[in-house]
């Protein structure tokens, strides 16, 4: 447990290598690649179709709600993995704690449904 600052040298080397690779590739592509300019090439969004309007259009807040709910229930899975790995050691205590955790989550889910967040057309 007695690390000297010099023990971290490999990390610095790794960091330097990563940065150097990025700088090198950026500079190299800049110099190597051919450049052609035309009105179509310089278009903001080049995919063959003429772009219409602005990128900053208002988007329904429902998308954000669904996204944030997805993140919530997604992250909750993270807590299940360590529990599953230590399932036997944690025994009934761990099970009870997990049930409490899941029931809190479930209450939140019921609340979301009752609030009508998942009703898309409203």
């Amino acid at each position, binding site marked *: 447990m007695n690390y000297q600052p010099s023990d971290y040298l490999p990390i610095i080397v790794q960091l330097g290598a990563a940065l150097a690779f990025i700088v090198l590739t950026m500079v190299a592509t800049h110099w190597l690649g051919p450049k052609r300019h035309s009105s179509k090439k310089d278009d903001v969004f080049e995919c063959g179709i003429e772009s219409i309007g602005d990128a900053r259009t208002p988007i329904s807040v429902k998308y954000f709600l669904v996204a944030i709910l997805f993140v919530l229930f997604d992250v909750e899975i993270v807590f299940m993995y360590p529990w599953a790995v230590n399932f036997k050691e944690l025994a009934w205590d761990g099970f009870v704690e997990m049930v409490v955790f899941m029931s*809190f989550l479930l*209450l939140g889910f019921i*609340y979301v449904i*009752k609030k009508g967040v998942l009703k898309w057309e409203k």
Partner: protein
Amino acid sequence: MNAIIALSLSGIASLFLGFSTNRKNLLITTLLFVLVALGLNLADWNHEYFWFNNMLKTDNLSINFSSVILLSTALVVAISRSFGDDEEHTHPAEYYAIMLFAAAGALMMVTYENMIMLFVGLEILSVSMYILTGSDKRNLRSNEAALKYFLMGAFATGILLFGVALVYGATGSFNIHGIGEVVSRTKKGMELFEGGVILYAGIILIFIGLLFKVSAAPFHFWTPDVYEGAPTIFTTFMSTVVKTAGVAAMYRLLSISFPAVYGLWGNPLVWITCLTLIVGNITAVYQQSFKRMLAYSSISHAGYLLITILAKTPNTNGSILFYSLAYSIATISAFAVLMIVSENKPKDGKPDESFEALNGLSVNNPFLAFVLTVSMLSLAGIPLTAGFFGKFFIFTDAFSNVSPLFKNILVVAILMSAVGVYYYFKPIIAVYMKKGEIAEIQLPLIYKITLIITTALTIILGIAPDLVKNMF
């Protein structure tokens, strides 16, 4: 810590109650929830317990702090009046639930034994406050305040967490008593032991994170904008519960973990305290808005509370608690009067929160004028109010400390109290001496009872401070 569990469960309960009952019942049930939590909290009195694998520890000091927090929460809930009658744009069930969660977070911050719990409690409290600050969705000011608070608060929490990580790296413990043991084994003063630099950097970073939360200068810049932008009821909550919890958390950490390195955090804290007092008080003088003035006043009171953390006498526990209590009840009455007067007198469709809004309040509303006067006198520290004894105890603590530094702090603090008298008298003058038209304001019963309680408590504590002081 059964109060934390009770608050968490009742928070969820009040979320679901929002589907079934009306607004008035919600207020009563939430108040009941908080009082139940207060009772459960007091049930631990005189028992020192470690909870949840040494995550929390309740002792009499933390129970006292919890009681102050829960009392403030109850009073704030009581003056919430169910958040107006706008059915479409206000969500009282959610607001109450978030307030209950925030109170649970605040209780964790005063009872933590493990640094992780400090972080978790702080985050529960802060995230709740970010939401409540922005709860007036269609008010641009409220949105701005919420965003500012969130960005700055997130940074402060990050800095705190970095500090916790460094302290863990240096001491190998998250437990505050464990950290304290390792730190006290180091040589006295600033001499380095192995990993000492990391420990000191960690302490300073934790320190910055917590000072941000109690809005001490130079980490106070968010305070006026956020306090002004947030709906007044949540400003009240912020300036009482959040401040008490922040100061208590800081005091717990500094007095248990880091007394051995007093020289390290004590010296910067002297400067921070003086700066906080000066910035808070001098800037408050120039404010046109009553609400903004109260925001700066809350900065200056953070300064007074820091003095007693610094002074480190055996009386510090009592002084800090008494001051928090006196400050909280006076602030709640001041905001309560501001809220009801400004809502009755809209300017450009928004509540008028300037001093002028109070002009001539005493003509038709002598009760409100009296409540406001008592709370202002208490905040200014005029005798026969709780605020006087709060300041008195703190100054006595500072005076009894042998270090000559404290005489300097004392001079600054007393000068700044004198400045405080000037701006705290502005609303009193507006109420009694300026001419203005304010019709008689009908107070709901629960509102009236709350104001009577806070005013009576302020006066009783001002006449007989020993009633409460001896308890601490």
